[in-house]
Structure formats: C-alpha cells, structure tokens
C-alpha cells in the first residue's frame, strides 16, 4: 500500500466486521446506540432538519441530491399525513452497501429513520426492502420489535408522546422498485410503474397521494451520525459539497473486492483499485471501470479527463486520478451513483460486457413508457446478435442512435440508466465493436459463457 493512501474511516460500517458485535439491540446499545435519538428528541423537529441541511449530506441512493433540501420540499400545508420510506431496494448491479448495513447493524437504520420521522413529522414509516433480501427482512423485523420493546420506535417513543410505526415491506424482485415513485406505487400494492413528474413529486403527492420522503438506507444512517456529531461537525468530514463518508462497493477483477468506507474525496480511484483492493490479478492490465453501478457511464483506462470543477479549479486526470466523491466521477463524465465500482481488466470482451448490462435493463424495464420498453430490448437484441456472430459494422452507430432516442425521453431515470452504458461503451470502445463485425468468427464459441 502506498504511503499516500488514507485509511478507511468507518462511520456507517464501524461495527460491521467486528467479531464481538451482532445485529441485536444489546450490542447496539453497548456501543452508544439510540443516544442520538434521545438527543434528537430533545430538539425541535425543525432543528433536526436544520442540522441535516447544515451537514450537507447528499443522498446515497445514486442521484446525490442533498437530503436536507429534499426534506424542505415536503408539503406541510396540505394537512395530509406525511410518510417516510426507506429505499432498501438495493438492486443496482455492482452495489452491495445497504445490505451490509441492514444485515450487520440494522438498529443504526432504525435510529436514523426514527430521527428522520421525528424531523419531518411522519407517523408511519416503511422500509421497502428488495425481495432477494429474505434474511435482511427478518433481521430488520426482529430489530424493529426489539426497538419497539425498548421504546425507540412505535408508540410513544422515549415517552415523548410522539409515535411513529415502522414496518418492513418486501418487494417482489423488480429493479424498477428502486425508483422512488415506482417504489411508492409498489408499496400501494400496484405495478411499480414510475409516476410522471410533474405532478407526482413524492414530497407533495407521494404514497397514497400524501407528502412522502424517500431516502436511501445509507442516507438515513448518516442522519443518526449527523445528530450525534452535529451538522457542522459532519460537514467537516470529506470535502465541501461532498460531506461524510461513502461506502464503495468494489467488484470485478481485483484481488480484494468488497466494501470500503472512506471519507468523501479522500482517495482516488487508482488508490482504491491498486492499493486498497490489492490491484489486478497478476499479468492483467486495467481496461475499464464503471464507477457508480451499472447505469453509470464506463470509464476507459487510458482516458484523460480535463476541465474545470465547480469551484473553479482546473483538472486533468487519468482514470486513476479521479477523486472518489460525488463530484469527481461526475467531472469525468460519469457518476458516483450508488458507489458500485466495477473493475474490468484486459481479458474482458467489452461487447459482451455491454450485452450483459443491456440484458439486465431489457429484463428490468417496467414497460410503461415507449422509449425504455422498446429501446432497452432492442439494444439487448442487437448486442446479443453481435456476440453471437451476427455483428455488422453499422451496429455501433445503430446502438448509439437507439440509446439517444431513449435518453431524456422517458418517465423516469431508468431511460438514462439503460442508455448511458450503451452510449459510453460504444463511444469509448468503438474499435472493439467494429472488430466484432470484421474479425470475429461468425458463430459464438460454444465454450464461452452463456449470454444472459
């Protein structure tokens, strides 16, 4: 490990891998659990919101929208009940951070949620957990009942006469349920078709047409720590506009894949891959990295990224120089998204990699709006054909054109999520796509992995 690489700073995952720590309430209380809830309850709800706003904490679900700001949009004049939903439908390929939190330290989430519910005035809160987390749902349910028994959740929290019920709702296995309005539809018992915005902004017309806040698991956990250390103090972690820590989920061809929590902006992509994760396998070289879950645009190993940051500083980075925070990958033309970093070395067939991503989005498109429904399947069919010996030279441009016809024209951000990978793969690795048409055998090697 090189000298300059900083150490992990675990705030959210502090106890995640502690052998003397379990997901039961006893361990949590031993380590100071629910103290911050008590602190929050001694404040005014508005003050809690102010602290979160001050902390500058940005949403950890993918879009990176400031959480405190989101709460401000809440329609409090309507007189309708306010709902809080925790988005635990972690399904972005390459992302596995929320799972660690829920499985290993569920009370942290409950405490964060109760503080949030108190701040926004919600009387009912939900954890919408993806179907595949069977175990996680059970752990959360047990944790909630423990918290209820101890008076940290449910009726009359901490004898304050403030009550907020919390239930776990299990999804049914659809990626689109991670989109907040799709999630709300699903929670209402319908098909998770994302809603049109306007008029259905969750903060105004959310669950059951009532004002609703939907936050990611990691975001809500951060709320707990913000109250603990104070918004001011929290904002000193990381960098301005990129406060707090982030959990990076590294997968792909590195020696030590896994989750790593660092202060925002404290290390570069290169340090993470080559130092923290132990580098690539022997004899391999880096080909590409997807920095924020499969819907983020792929970055090419030999690319140069230059421009001016928001604060006016100029930058000229190679792939390895990209700072790991919200703004770094964004400046490089991609995004940090949900923190799922997928590393690809030179053994990867880039067209097959894209075919894999396309297959995922074609399978997960809800089918509500035309561009995403038809475009994602079309892209999948093209890329599968290309990998099966039927590639044509014009396919690269066709893929780009189809992707362009999806991007920005759909109901929800799934359109971009499906279009961006294709756009970036084809643009940045065009020679691989042309080679598929010119040099590849006309049939797929029967020994190669089956396409999904």
């Amino acid at each position, binding site marked *: 490990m090189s000298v300059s690489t900083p150490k992990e700073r675990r705030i959210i995952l502090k106890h995640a891998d502690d052998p003397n720590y379990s997901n039961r309430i006893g361990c949590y209380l031993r380590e100071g659990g629910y103290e911050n809830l008590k602190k929050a309850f001694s404040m005014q709800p508005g003050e809690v919101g102010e602290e979160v706003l001050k902390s500058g904490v940005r949403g950890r679900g993918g879009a990176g929208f400031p959480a405190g700001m989101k709460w401000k949009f809440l329609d409090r004049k309507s007189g309708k009940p306010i709902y809080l939903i925790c988005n635990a439908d972690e399904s972005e390929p390459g992302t596995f951070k929320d799972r660690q939190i829920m499985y290993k330290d569920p009370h942290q989430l409950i405490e964060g949620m109760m503080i949030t519910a108190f701040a926004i005035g919600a009387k009912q809160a939900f954890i919408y957990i993806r179907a595949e987390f069977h175990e996680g749902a059970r752990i959360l349910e047990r944790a909630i009942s423990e918290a209820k028994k101890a008076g940290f959740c449910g009726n009359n929290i901490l004898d304050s006469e403030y009550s907020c019920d919390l239930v776990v709702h299990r999804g049914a296995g*659809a990626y689109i349920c991670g989109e907040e309005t799709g999630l709300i539809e699903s929670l209402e018992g319908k*098909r998770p*078709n994302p809603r*049109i915005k*306007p*008029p259905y902004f969750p903060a105004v017309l959310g669950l059951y047409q009532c004002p609703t806040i939907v936050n990611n698991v990691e975001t809500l956990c951060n709320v707990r720590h913000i109250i603990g250390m104070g918004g001011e103090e929290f904002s000193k972690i990381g960098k301005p506009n990129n406060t707090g820590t982030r959990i990076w989920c590294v997968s792909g061809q590195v020696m030590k894949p896994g989750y790593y929590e660092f202060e925002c902006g404290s290390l570069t992509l290169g340090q993470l891959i080559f130092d923290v994760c132990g580098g690539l396998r022997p004899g391999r070289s880096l080909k590409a990295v997807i920095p924020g879950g499969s819907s983020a645009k792929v970055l090419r190993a030999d690319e140069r990224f230059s421009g001016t940051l928001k604060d006016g500083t100029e930058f000229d980075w190679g792939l390895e120089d990209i700072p790991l925070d919200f703004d770094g990958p964004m400046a490089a033309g991609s995004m940090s998204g949900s923190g799922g970093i997928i590393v690809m070395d030179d053994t990867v067939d880039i067209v097959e990699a894209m075919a894999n991503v396309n297959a995922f989005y*074609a*399978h*997960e*498109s*809800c*089918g*509500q*709006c*035309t*561009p995403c*429904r*038809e*475009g*994602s*399947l*079309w892209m999948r*069919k*093209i890329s599968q*054909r290309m990998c099966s010996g039927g590639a044509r030279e014009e396919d690269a441009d*066709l893929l780009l*054109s189809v992707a*362009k*016809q999806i991007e*920005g*024209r*759909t*109901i929800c951000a799934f359109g971009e999520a499906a279009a961006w990978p294709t756009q970036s793969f084809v643009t940045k690795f065009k020679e691989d796509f042309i080679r598929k048409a010119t040099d590849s055998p006309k049939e797929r090697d029967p020994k190669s992995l089956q396409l999904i």
Partner: protein
Amino acid sequence: MIAPDNKEMVNITLNGIEVEVPNGINAVEAAALHGKEVPHYCYHPKLSVAGNCRMCLVEMGTPMRDRASGEPILDEDGTPKIGWVPKPVIGCATNITPGMHLRTESDLVNECREGIMEFLLVNHPLDCPICDQAGECRLQEFATDYGRGYSRYVERKNVKPKRTRLGPRVTLDDERCILCSRCIRFSQEVAKDDVLGFVDRGSFSTLTCFPGKELANNYSLNTVDICPVGALTSTDFRFKMRVWFLKESKSVCTESSAGCNTLVSSREGTIQRITPRRNDQVNDTWMTDSGRELYKLVKAKSRIRRPSFQGSDLPLDDAISQAFEALKNKKIGVVASCHSSLEEQFLIKRLVEETGAKVFIRGHFGEDDGILLSADRTPNLRGALVAGLTNHYPSDHLNDLNESLADGHVEALLVIGEDLKDSGVNEDNLRKVPLVFLGTHQNSTSDCAEVVLPGLTVFEKSGSLINRSFFLQSFDQAIPCPAGLMTDFKILARLIDLFSEDSIAPSELDQIWEALSSSENSVLKGITFLKIKKGAIQLDESKWEHLSFVEKEALHYLPTGVIAS
C-alpha cells in the same frame, strides 16, 4: 382530466407566435386550438393523464426571473429570456401557465417523434392488410406524418397471442398493443369496472383481464373505440369491413333517455357498426354496448316490411286509406310512443286535435346504471311532454286504456309501435275494436291489428329527440328505407289530411318545424331543424320541473332538485 374547468385566457408563445389559450389546459389541447397537432396515443381528453407513450414530447420554456428580485431577466435585445427545459416534456402533462413558451415543430421535437414512432413499430406486427383499425389507425397516421419512413430493425419481433378473448364483445390482438393503458384507465375511471391490467414487464407486457374476471360490462366496446391501434377489436365488427368504405351519419342512440350522440357507419345501405360521437355535455366520447346493437333491429326477422290489411299485403297508399276507414267516425284512442321523434309526436298531437281522439302513453323503465343507460328506456319521453301529448308523467301501464276499451269510450285504436301485451290491456278488449298499428317490428299488438303500417327505424329517417337533460338533438338518416315505405311523419300527415277537410298537414321536416317553432308559448320557439343539426339545443325545462322523472344522477345529468356539488 388534469385540466381545470377554467375559462380565463392567457397568452403563451407557440412556435414563436403569441397566442391566447385558456389557462391551465394542457399543451396538447392548447396547440390544437391553434391548429398545431401534437401527436399522442395514451392521452385522451376524457381520461386521466398517463404520460406513457411519449409521443407528445414538446419543448417547453418559461420566462426566466431573477431569484432575488423576482424581476424578469432580459436578453440583450430587451426581450425576456426564456429558460427552456433541457429535456423535452410531455405535452399531455404540461399545463399552460401565463407566458409559457412551447415548440411543437422544432428539430428536437421531430427527432423525438421519429424515435418514438420507430420504437412503437419495432415490435409491431405491421399486419395492416388484415387489421380492422387500418384506415383509422393512429400508428398508421403518425408513422406517415412523423415517422422515418424506413426500418432499421433487423432483429426478431416479439410474438404475442393474436386473438385473446377479453370478454363477450372484445377481442385482443396482443401484438398490436402499444400499452398506452387507455382501456385500463377507461375501465377504472368511466366504466368503474376495474378488470384490465398489464402482466409481465418490459416489451413483453401484455394486457389481460384479472384472473376470473372478464371485460363484460356494458361499456366494454368503448375500449375498442379509444384503442389508438388495432389491438382491441370489436368481436362483432372484426374482419367485417374496411373502414374506408363506411359512410358515417350522425345519429342519436334511442336506447334510453341519455341520448348518446352516435355515428352510424354503413356501406351500401347496410349498417356495419355504431360508435359514439363526442358531445361534452351529453356522453363525452362514450356509449353503451347495448346501444351499439340496435342496428341489428333494421334487418331483424320481426321487421315489418310491407303494409297489410287483414293479413294481406297491399300498397302503402291503400293501407293508409284502410286505416282511415277503420278509424273514421269512431271514438278513437291513440297509443302514442315515447320512442317516436318529436316531429312524429307533433303530428300525432295534430291528429288527436283533428279527430278528438284520446291519447294514451306508456313509459318504459329499467335500472339506471348511473352512466349512460338511464332508467327511462325511451329516447323521447320529454318530447311527448314538449309536443303536448301528455301533461302527466307516463306510467308503465295503460290500465285506463283497458277501461276505456271495456266501457266503449274507445271504439277504434291507433297504436304507434307500442306492444300492449303486459301493459294492463286485456287482449279480448283489444280485439273488440278495429286496430291500426304503425310500427317497425311485429309484436302481439301488430298481430291483432286490422291495418299494419310499417314504420321506419331511427336509422332510416331524420328527426329530433329530447334527452334527459332536455337537450334537443337531431339524428340523420343513415341508410335508405325498405322499398315502398315512407317515413312515419309522412304517413301521419296523410292520415291527418284524410280526416281534415280544409287544411294540409306539414309533411316535411322544415314545414313541421315551422309549425313547431311558431307557437308563442312553446319552448321550441325560434328553433329550426337546421339549428338542431348544428348542435344540441338546451330547452327550458321549468314547465316540467314538478314531474318526478325517474332518472338518477349520472354522467352529465343531475336530477331536478339535486344541487351540483
């Protein structure tokens, strides 16, 4: 339904030209008001906004304002700077605000439309040559107007079922479905029979009925009408006729007093289908399934096609003379009908005045569905009131006629279409007197008649009807009548002429309306038939407010005494 009912006009800039539109309506409607088509599939003016087809993407911008001062930001040339939304927005869910800028004809908009059209067609079977929708298909129209004109798609198309039975009257061709969800929203919001939904996802999404349910409500065929493509087809009309051969005539549904506006489509004198015609005050764009079946009466077995006297056919002129012979110099009873047009009812009233006959009139009642099938199952009960045939609300029996027949107060009877069986009239009493029947279909009463005069169905004649809301509406002749027959009011006029020595009864629509509208006290004063043809006319109903009409609150109808919420 997102647009508020608001008449306040505001200025917007549409494709660079300042125009005036009602505040709050959506961009699709606003553009249409000024002759700019914004193509759309899922948007329907009478349903909620789904925003899923993405065909109506337009560019939208609003004048920029300084955040601190609220002052408009000006361009270098002094005009307000427009903040264009970076992505195209859907017109159907974009409500007009004052000063809004819209572009419906830009390069980006055209590119969006090309893209959406291409996407909609990649998995579309393109079986137009055998598709019933061909000729009135939005996919065809917009592909021609906004599509690329060639295909870049070389992959295999998705295959889906071609003939799924959704209900007794609706058949689904899944491959053609563009998943716009109009039918689902219609079932939920208008028919209030939530039975349709999508299963599976992505491009494999398929419209289906919920398990154990079927699309069997009396409004199911409206889903066929609003289907922008050939996915939902009418089982009755399927594969029968190319729509471009159809002649369309404006008509009014005679099923009940709701008075749905309809289009009767026929070819070479044969009606092929009936579809609703939009009228925002009466039926929006809907009608019942049962109302669509009525055209089958034209060619029904029981249809009376020939005049007859004592069971043998004879020319119509002779039959009218025989009718006069049967009725003259007797105390006549006339059983008038709420199925007759206003013009016919007017002439019956004339006949009654001329002969001193006694009028009997019967109502026909059923369940009110609260939408477009009203409890009054006749189309023109209010016409009978307006024509002065009765001052009372008709009841569902004719007991007083039975008495009059029994005690000899009625010695001869003219029945207009009515079947007196089950009306309280004893058949023996009926057989005591000479009976003249003027009607379209054979029934137990026509069987007793000495003279049978064939009437015409609503599709074979023109006239007007007054619906439950006192809207006076006209219907046009859609098909020619059977050979040798003539329209009911002409028969009535001839009959009147035989009774009357010194005057000639009006026997043309214009003449009838001249008479109808000339009376000082009439609610019809000043109305001409041409005016009715131009649009429904709301009549003053105050004269009949005291009557207890049977209709319940329904689509665009509030019973008297109910205050609109």
